[in-house]
């Protein structure tokens, strides 16, 4: 029989206060279209020389990862899997800008060397001397979900006993402007565009775990029938009843087209539970779904659903047995993640 997979620790650096859960009681509220992460003091994780060589995305990834590893009590993960929608976009832009403005004559390798998407996972491996499985996903809003899915499949196959899974995206002012032009970010009524750094440690050890990852599925342009069947399968294989689901966590962000898609999916899934959001406090970014899982894991671990997260329906009293996370990207890729209470 397969061993269950647990989230042992989950850490974030985002537009909320870093490396802590202050957002539960007192979230930082923004009234702007775009803002950058609230960074911690990186000195506790990196020497000044190391820090100088690294872009923001790398420093944050290292800080959340090292904290998640340290708190988990696991010496070294057996896999490092990262999701990032745009990769190291700051360095990519610097190299691209120089190429476009100054031509091909005098380009230096510094920015190019840290421009690939897998720079993050690679840095984490070098820093933690982890030579095991190492992969990076870059698929829009399901980049983090893909990384989680990969890890989960390997746990199911018994290939690994622990994994560091991350979701990391930075957003530069200039790239925000471009994505605003494309209608991805900063549209009318949309939540603030932010940045995300999330690291979760997964393990097969139940002790002190936050929650269990019961099932994950990824779909592409699914029909209603396919969504219905997928939910049935997930519930059946994880031994969860519809009424065990205490909340549905969605990626609603104020953009009408985006939000309608969630309503449609929930209707099809036929689950009656209060709907919770997280992008109103963590902002929108390609790997925001990682912050969704992070938030849901903390909710289930603390047995608490913050009122400010609930946007539809009412909380039932009693034990929070399970939470269903729904994520979609442009209404095309759809993912479901079902997490449950370790005591259930």
């Amino acid at each position, binding site marked *: 029989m397969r061993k269950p997979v647990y989230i042992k620790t989950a850490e974030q650096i985002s537009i909320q206060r870093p490396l802590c859960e202050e957002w539960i009681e007192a979230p930082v509220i923004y009234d702007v279209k775009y803002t950058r992460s609230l960074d911690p003091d990186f000195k506790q994780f990196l020497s000044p020389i190391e820090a100088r060589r690294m872009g923001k995305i790398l420093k944050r990834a290292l800080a959340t990862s090292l904290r998640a590893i340290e708190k988990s009590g696991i010496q070294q993960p057996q896999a490092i899997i990262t999701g990032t929608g745009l990769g190291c976009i700051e360095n990519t832009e610097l190299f691209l800008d120089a190429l*476009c*403005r100054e031509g091909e004559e005098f380009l230096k390798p510094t920015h190019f060397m840290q421009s*690939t998407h897998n720079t993050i996972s690679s840095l984490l491996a070098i820093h933690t001397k982890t030579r095991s499985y*190492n992969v990076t996903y870059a698929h*829009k809003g*399901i980049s983090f979900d*893909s990384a989680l899915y*990969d890890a989960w499949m390997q746990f199911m*196959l018994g290939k690994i006993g622990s994994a560091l899974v991350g979701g990391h995206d930075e957003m530069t002012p200039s790239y925000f402007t471009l994505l605003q032009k494309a209608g991805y970010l900063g549209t009318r009524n949309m939540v603030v565009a932010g940045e995300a750094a999330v690291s979760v440690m997964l393990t097969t050890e139940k002790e002190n775990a936050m929650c269990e990852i019961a099932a994950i599925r990824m779909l*592409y342009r699914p029909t209603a029938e396919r969504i219905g069947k997928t939910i049935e399968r997930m519930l059946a294989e994880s031994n969860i009843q519809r009424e065990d689901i205490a909340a549905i966590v969605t990626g609603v962000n104020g953009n009408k087209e985006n939000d309608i898609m969630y309503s449609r999916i929930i209707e099809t899934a036929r689950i009656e539970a209060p709907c919770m959001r997280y992008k109103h406090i963590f902002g929108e970014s390609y790997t925001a779904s990682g912050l969704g899982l992070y938030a849901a894991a903390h909710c289930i671990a603390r047995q608490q659903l913050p009122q400010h997260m609930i946007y539809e329906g009412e909380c039932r009293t009693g034990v929070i047995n399970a939470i269903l996370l729904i994520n979609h990207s442009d209404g095309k890729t759809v993912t479901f993640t079902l997490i449950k209470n370790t005591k259930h």
Partner: protein
Amino acid sequence: MPDRPILITGAGIVSSIGNDKQGVLSSLLEERSGIAPIEYLKTGHKEFPVGEVKLSDKEMAAMLGIPDGTPTTRTSLMGMLALKEALDQASLDSSDLPEVGFISGTTVGGMDMSEQFYLDFLSNDTKNEYIKTHDCGACTEMIADHFGTFGFITTISTACSSAANAVILGANAIKNGLAEIVVVGGSECITKFHLNGFNSLMILDKENCRPFCDTRAGLNLGEGAAYIVLESLESAQRRGVQSMAELKGYGNACDAFHQTASSPDGEGAYMAMKEAIEMAGISPAEIGYINAHGTGTPNNDHSESQAMKRLFAGKLPPVSSTKSFTGHTTSASGSIELAICLLALQNGFLPGNPNWKKEADGVIVPITGTLHNVKVKNILCNSFGFGGNDSSLLISKWERV
């Protein structure tokens, strides 16, 4: 869960040595390299030979029936051509796709358009439709959407091992019973961005590349796409499709040494190959051919050589790097070279490593000319990426039980 054999029931390839399997096969058998002076990429660096796909974007769009003016990228166009050939061979049409997964590897994604229009994006707003085609995921979706609706899709970006890692994820999904068929691979066009990036790292050769040769001085960039149809045995039997080979093993490890260089002892490469062989349940002695990563850079070839020497302990099977035919097709190299290995396995030959002249200290000696009439059972195919993302795939002749 009982172990599920994974068969390869289709393959499609577009590269500088041919726009389909037949073209690639002829080039390999006749030892025709695709490396030539730059023709399609608009760059000032004419001093570097490259392995370009010998089709313009316009020609590819026309072959695919894509109307003029549709925003596409070179990476997605090459991907569509390769995917079409793979789906056709596996007898998959749009009605099958909702049950089929699609996993594609790329790193530059839509950079070919971004580098042309970036300044325009910032100030003119006449090319904004290409902002949406920039990211890696957009590239995968464009390729997928040309054929219908796949069941699930995602994108891997581990630089030059991206396509190999797509193979691994697809295989794991089948082994888990989460899918019966997954199409995997990668696509990548040459861009000014990474041509200049590699140039700034001083790893491009101004002459045709010479993997494993004492005089090797760097790599030649290539481009292309290849997709492989992975299918469970049950599904292949039910559909009555022919199998080209079995994907018997795979390994992924991280060198954890440097962002852009390989370790002197090739530890990551060693671990990846070892894992693949162990998973296949065979001994290193049973490997009949290794398609090496063999980029032609002094660093990679030396590092990979150490790993191979250690693992095969004096009994090294024939090794070659087909990058001297195709150029280094970066994110697509994993599936392009796997497709080449499939052709070798099926047609009983081993592709050579042209341009190799002189043995180098501490470096393995590859086969140079194409070896004809060689029947092997197991082939190992290496792909190593920036950041030490090392993967190795093992295919075997499928013998019906």
